[in-house]
């Protein structure tokens, strides 16, 4: 599957006319956004532009002032409590620092959603925790550790294992590589791409990491002026004329990340050829 044909999938998330206000401050004003099945959509925006508020509105942690949010075709505002709980099964969320429960070990953290939704045998739950932990690239000896004993990168991986515990088709990642060293960040990018391909995930990725944007995202949505000003592939955004987009994608750091991607692509090409 190439990057191009992912965009044709049906819309997993459809946001229309989203308005969010806090007091006199309007964060979003008529925001529209589509996330297609099987794609990795990167959401970028300046600090304070409301990326996290958008994420929280979609996953139901924040009630918008107006607008319609559909996930898998169902209007989230119309769901009963029981339906909303059932709907939450179909997505996993990785919070910024992993948000692991500090009183539980990594393996127990992964088992929390399993316990909440199903009554599985302890043996199967332990096995599920073990393979999920291995799947996100953690060593088996990280499983019985408490989150306080983990490094930043390991916490994100453990958080991802918990987010994937119920095999959701959709995952939300909130700045998963922020604060990681470049090696861990690159490894995490690879992990996300690998899992997307094997598990067929649809990924909503809030990020600031230009390298992540260039390597993992199929499409990028730019949040500025209280709405999504443009969406498109990197190449499309590089030719976008919106001033903020221009500054973001044609700034020195962006050029460096782009150069790195081009160099890597060239190398891969040579190796394959």
């Amino acid at each position, binding site marked *: 599957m190439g990057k191009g044909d992912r965009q044709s999938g049906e819309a997993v998330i459809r946001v229309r006319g989203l308005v969010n206000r806090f007091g006199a401050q309007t964060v979003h004003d008529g925001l529209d956004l589509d996330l297609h*099945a099987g794609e990795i959509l990167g959401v970028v925006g300046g600090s304070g532009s409301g990326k996290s508020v958008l994420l929280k509105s979609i996953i139901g942690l924040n009630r918008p002032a107006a607008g319609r949010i559909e996930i898998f075709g*169902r209007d989230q505002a119309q769901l009963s409590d029981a339906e909303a709980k*059932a709907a939450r099964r*179909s997505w996993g969320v990785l919070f910024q620092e992993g948000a692991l429960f500090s009183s539980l070990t990594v*393996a127990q953290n992964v088992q929390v959603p399993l316990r909440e939704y199903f009554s*599985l045998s302890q043996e199967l739950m332990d096995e599920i925790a073990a393979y999920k932990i291995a*799947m996100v690239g953690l060593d088996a000896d990280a499983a019985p550790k408490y989150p*306080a004993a983990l490094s930043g990168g390991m916490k994100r991986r453990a958080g991802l294992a918990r987010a994937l515990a119920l095999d959701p088709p959709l995952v939300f990642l909130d700045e998963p590589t922020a604060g990681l060293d470049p090696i861990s960040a690159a490894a995490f990018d690879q992990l996300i791409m690998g899992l997307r391909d*094997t598990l067929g995930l649809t990924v909503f990725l809030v990020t600031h990491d230009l390298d992540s944007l260039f390597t993992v995202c199929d499409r990028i949505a730019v949040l500025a002026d209280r709405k999504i000003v443009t969406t498109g592939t990197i190449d499309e955004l590089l030719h976008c004329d919106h001033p903020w987009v221009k500054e973001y994608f044609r700034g020195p750091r962006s050029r460096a990340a782009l150069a790195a991607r081009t160099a890597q692509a060239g190398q891969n090409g040579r190796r394959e050829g």
Partner: protein
Amino acid sequence: MATRAMTGERPEEPRLEIDAAGARLRLLARGDWVIDSADRLERLAGAVRPLTQTRAEIDLAGLRRLDTVGAWLLYRIERALAAADIAVDYHYRTDTQRRIVEQVRASDSACAIEPPEEHILLTLIEDIGVATVRIVTDFGALLAFLGNVFLRIGRSILHPSRIRLTPLVHQIEVVGFRAIPIVGLLSFLIGAVVVNQGAVQLRKFGAEILVTDLVSFGFLRELGGFLAAIILAGRSGSAFAAEIGSMVMREEVDALKTLGINPIDVLVLPRLVAMVLVLPLLTFFSDIMGLLGGAIMAWLQLGLTVDQFINRLAEMSLLRELYIGLIKSLFFAGVIAISGCFQGMTVEGTAESLGRNTTAAVVESIFLVIVLDAFFAVFFTTIGW
């Protein structure tokens, strides 16, 4: 993508047909092999027995949906057969099925769920050792902190121009002024309760009038200072620890040090001095409010007029009791401020540590206030006051 679970869809019952007639053992998986049916899947997987065949095939052609849990249980079958020296092949319908099964197989690595449990005796001994070391080192750190504080107090006295007035005034407002309503209300209520309950007991001796002695001695000597100290320990001791602790966490204290500013001067001394200035005042206020509550309760319950109440107070020599209360409050203030600031300064970077130290500041200062109070009770009685 169409094989992926979408919301609200009821899973189809999973089935496993076993065809043992041929040369290879054929296992045909049907329905939805997803986590929703995990119980049944486990039973299906457990029912597979190796027979005479040396080869087996798991056929997924009739499978509707597969998630990693379903794939894991297929893998369990594969593992059980492999253990009986039966080679297993898969027949996939889609590429997605193959990827999921291969991913799960590659992720097979058993792990412990909880850290290994140690012997209870060993942990007991370890805990005792750790606690002992901590008490000794904490005590050493406290002494060093106290020494530092006294040193800075000395320097401030020698160079009074360097005393920071703005934070001092701010602390006086926060610690003292804003505590007035709560101290007043609680003292008033306790004063009323002392009279109310005291009258019931004293009536047995026909000595109801002595409730004035009870409430005045009680408040001036003990309760006033004690109440004010407990309230400030809960209100300000915890705030000191939390404020200074969060500054330590955000490296603000380190920033102060690199700028050549002594954190004790700007963070600890204003709080300590404010507390020492304010607590005696609040003690006095608490005394007055306690007496007022007592007087009103005596009037309501016993019909004692305020005049009579005040006359009775004037007959007693209460000045000494007032002094005892005020002297004690100075020490209470020192203990509360020092333990709050010390706990704040020893926070270690994590949010848990901040919470722990804030709790410790309150518990420690209330504990020390009670211990000091007991000590003073014995001391003043011994010297005949």
